[in-house]
């Protein structure tokens, strides 16, 4: 991050974040803007900028996921469905952007109901819904074991969004893990198996999607606040805002807004622990 002029300073945008995704499941990563969702996706793909300072580690099927392994997996076993329809190259026919093997392209297009001949079109000749399907095909061409979908639904009507989500369920049913990055907690509850609630760059809670049926089933005060703020649950807004990455509190990142905050919460960041089958980073969760 640049300060005044060209002076630079370090922003700690992600801290103490622990998340895992299993084969055959959809893990939704839900959180407010600036909570580190997209950075998490970029880290998982190994495409963070060169000057990023990274601590901690990642593992891929038991093996440490380092730069060399990333390079081997990226675009093959780990694939991204990007957020924007602008990720396709406007000057290349869409078929060639998916695979050089026309059989693979034909098979994928048939599966996603894209008419024969679509592979010869340029991106600007596709509708929004077709573009989205083409990008899903591109992600699946390498036979991925992990698909990361970065905000795949904004701008889609509810009907088209449901349709896109069915595609991701199909991918998970095929044995791959799916990480669905979204700020739409409603969508996550309806379509994911588990939900990781991100707050200011840390995972507040990782819970089964069914736990979001009732606030009493949730563990972290922030997830409960999210629940209460949904229009169908009363539209109650918790006060305060997520702390700026340059001014993080020393203890629990949610402590300044937390109704259950105790002195120990202010002292040190809570460690993730298992509570009623979910993971939660909160000293007072039970």
């Amino acid at each position, binding site marked *: 991050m640049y300060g005044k002029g060209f002076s630079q300073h370090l922003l700690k945008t992600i801290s103490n974040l622990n998340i895992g995704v299993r084969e055959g499941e959809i893990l939704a990563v*839900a*959180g*407010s*803007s*600036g909570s580190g969702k997209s950075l998490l996706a970029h880290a998982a793909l190994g495409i963070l900028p060169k000057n990023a300072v990274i601590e901690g580690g990642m593992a891929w099927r038991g093996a440490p996921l380092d730069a060399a392994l990333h390079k081997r997996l990226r675009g093959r076993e780990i694939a991204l469905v990007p957020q924007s329809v602008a990720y396709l190259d406007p000057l290349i026919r869409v078929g060639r952007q998916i695979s050089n093997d026309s059989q693979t392209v034909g098979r994928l297009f048939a599966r996603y109901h894209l008419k024969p001949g679509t592979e010869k079109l340029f991106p600007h000749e596709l509708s929004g819904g077709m573009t989205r399907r083409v990008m899903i095909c591109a992600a699946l061409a390498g036979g991925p074991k992990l698909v990361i979908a970065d905000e795949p639904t*904004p*701008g*889609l*009507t*509810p009907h088209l969004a449901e349709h896109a989500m069915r595609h991701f369920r199909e991918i998970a049913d095929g044995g791959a893990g799916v990480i669905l990055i979204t*700020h739409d*907690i*409603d969508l996550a509850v309806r379509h994911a198996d588990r939900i990781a609630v991100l707050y200011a760059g840390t995972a507040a809670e990782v819970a089964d999607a069914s736990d979001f049926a009732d606030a009493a089933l949730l563990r972290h005060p922030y997830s409960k*606040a*999210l629940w209460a*703020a*949904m*229009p*169908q649950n009363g*539209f*109650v*807004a*918790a*006060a305060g*805002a*997520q702390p*700026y990455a340059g001014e993080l509190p020393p203890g629990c990142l949610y402590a300044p807004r937390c109704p259950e905050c105790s002195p120990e919460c202010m002292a040190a960041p809570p460690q993730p622990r298992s509570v009623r089958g979910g993971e939660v980073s909160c000293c007072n969760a039970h």
Partner: protein
Amino acid sequence: MRIEVRDIVFGYTKGKKVLDGVSLSIEAGERVALVGPSGCGKSTLSQIIAGALKPESGEVLFAGKSLPRRGFCPIQLIRQHPEKAVNPRWKLGRTLAEAWAPDDSFLAAMGIEKAWLDRYPAELSGGELQRFCIARALAPETRFIIADEISTMLDVITQAQLWELLLHAASSRGLGILAVTHSERLAAHVSSRIIDFTPHMP
């Protein structure tokens, strides 16, 4: 001081009308939601009502007169993407001061911290930035707010916070609101009348 929208026609490309003869009216202090599929012209209509776009034909009347061409517009538009609605090279204090000079208690009520006035837009989150856009639109001369999907890209807590701020300000000052949204639940929550804008397809 009602808003009268009469026979608005508008298109971005020749021969293709986004809006073709749209008429509606909103009473002073009324809260109306505008819903419809994407691409049906909700945002275009919002901009026309707020005077940010000129229709090909038809007119928008506020209190029986057309909108002022210069000076402060009593109908204020809050846009979907706050980062596109502020000057990226201005600190937010300057952006706010361009519209009016709110006092400290108003800023506190809007949940704006004083330190933010000294920041550039890139240093704030979308929700924080949207507070500035709402605060800017709530100048004393404002009579009507058009909220064009002001909270879709935000998490539910921020969404509820922003609407609480806006509804509170609107009811204490008797402002009318036109809320454009995809969410029927949100529409039901913030408005007393819903206009369904599903177009008659040609």
